[in-house]
């Protein structure tokens, strides 16, 4: 069953979601990957304002390809989330509510998700052409000098994702493969 969700996320909506749920995201999401995370983290550590208010928002770990003429964005699939693990607990404690990426998170991130009643979605890695079709608007809102790693504000319509770590700390990357393991 597909669950429609509109951003920004509220704790009430997040608490209803459980691992394995397929969602269709609607509204604004922000992009951010390695270099942007480093900058955001350093600002928070210094007690300074972020260039984008991420409270209640979702960060999508993506570095899209450049848009061809006439298109909103190029290919835009998720990148490996684990590289952001070092910075994520700090962002969640600050107020970030959700993340979209692919792959495992470490223990600290999982604990920060539970502590802050946040959520982690997976999008299909390598399906950047398909996912780009759900992005209807795109603009760079911070760090344009970072090129593909700049922070974009994206407007999405029915962006498909799967809940992989829920607010109770259940993890589909652990539970899913266990069902099919044969040794």
């Amino acid at each position, binding site marked *: 069953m597909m669950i429609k969700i509109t951003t920004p996320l509220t704790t009430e909506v997040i608490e209803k979601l459980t691992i*394995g749920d397929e969602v269709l995201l609607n509204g604004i999401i922000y992009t951010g990957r390695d270099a942007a995370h480093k900058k955001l983290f350093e600002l928070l550590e210094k007690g300074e304002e972020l260039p984008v208010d991420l409270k209640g928002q979702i960060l999508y770990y993506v570095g899209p390809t450049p848009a061809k003429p006439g298109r909103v964005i190029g290919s835009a*699939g998720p*990148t490996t989330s684990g590289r952001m693990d070092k910075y994520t607990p700090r962002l969640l404690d600050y107020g970030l509510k959700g993340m979209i990426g692919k792959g495992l998170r470490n223990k600290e991130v999982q604990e920060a998700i539970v502590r802050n009643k946040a959520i982690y979605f997976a999008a299909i*890695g390598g399906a950047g*052409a398909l996912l780009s079709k759900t992005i209807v608007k795109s603009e760079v809102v911070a760090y344009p000098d*970072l090129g593909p790693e700049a922070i974009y504000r994206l407007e999405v319509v029915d962006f498909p994702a799967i809940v992989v770590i829920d607010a109770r700390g259940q993890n589909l990357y652990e539970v899913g493969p266990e069902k*099919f393991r044969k040794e």
Partner: protein
Amino acid sequence: MRILDVKQIESAVKSMVVNANQKLSPDVFGALQQAEKSEESEVGKKILQRVIENAQIAANEELPICQDTGTAVIFLEIGQEVHLVGGNLYDAINNGVRAGYTEGYLRKSIVKDPLNRVNTGDNTPAVVHIDIVPGDKVKITVAPKGGGSENMSQLKMLKPADGVEGVKQFVIDTVRQAGSNPCPPVIVGVGIGGTFEKAALLAKKALLREVGSKNPDPLYQSLEAELLEKINKLGIGPQGLGGRITALAVHIETYPTHIASLPVAVNLNCHVARHETVIL
């Protein structure tokens, strides 16, 4: 002696980097369709359907299949009867990469220095491997390689006493530890033998083989089949969410080695296994 202008290589590289990023070769596409049929997990099946649909959209609309359009890894086999003229070969290759990645709207993912990390802005330099072979042809293979799967690759210097069991264990452990990160179903390139650097190159070259093709040596052919079966019993499945299809293929390449050594390299490729070859 055949005269070949490096401009021809430049122009071939330019169109190949774009094409390889937009169109999955039929062997990979076929392997994904086969995987979709045999996957037992409902979620896994749905993911594979979307992956196939993604490849079709990319080909039809000339979009990159994946946003990670990769490091431009380029293999050349240059016939020793060829005389290259018209400039520096490496410059020609990099000019081709620069033009293809820029004009083809591909993502530029290369940073100039691994620690200072400033983007070069044009995806150069390429990683180039050259072999001199008999004949008067130049064979160019372009294999854009994404960071997600490359990061999960490993190399280990085993002891000869570790033998085939040690090799199997290392390959399986590498895939297990990689889990969802390299965008399974993966293609597993294994290089056994040679030296430290040779094993890594063998593993990378193993990824260029047609997906599902078999090593001609019966020993390695059966090892490929056994490893594929064991990997698919791990349960990792498409995107690591559980399922039967964790790998589409295991390809092993070997080389003679030192009496003291047993190097093994595992290079993982995501399901977007891009490679394209032309012969000039």
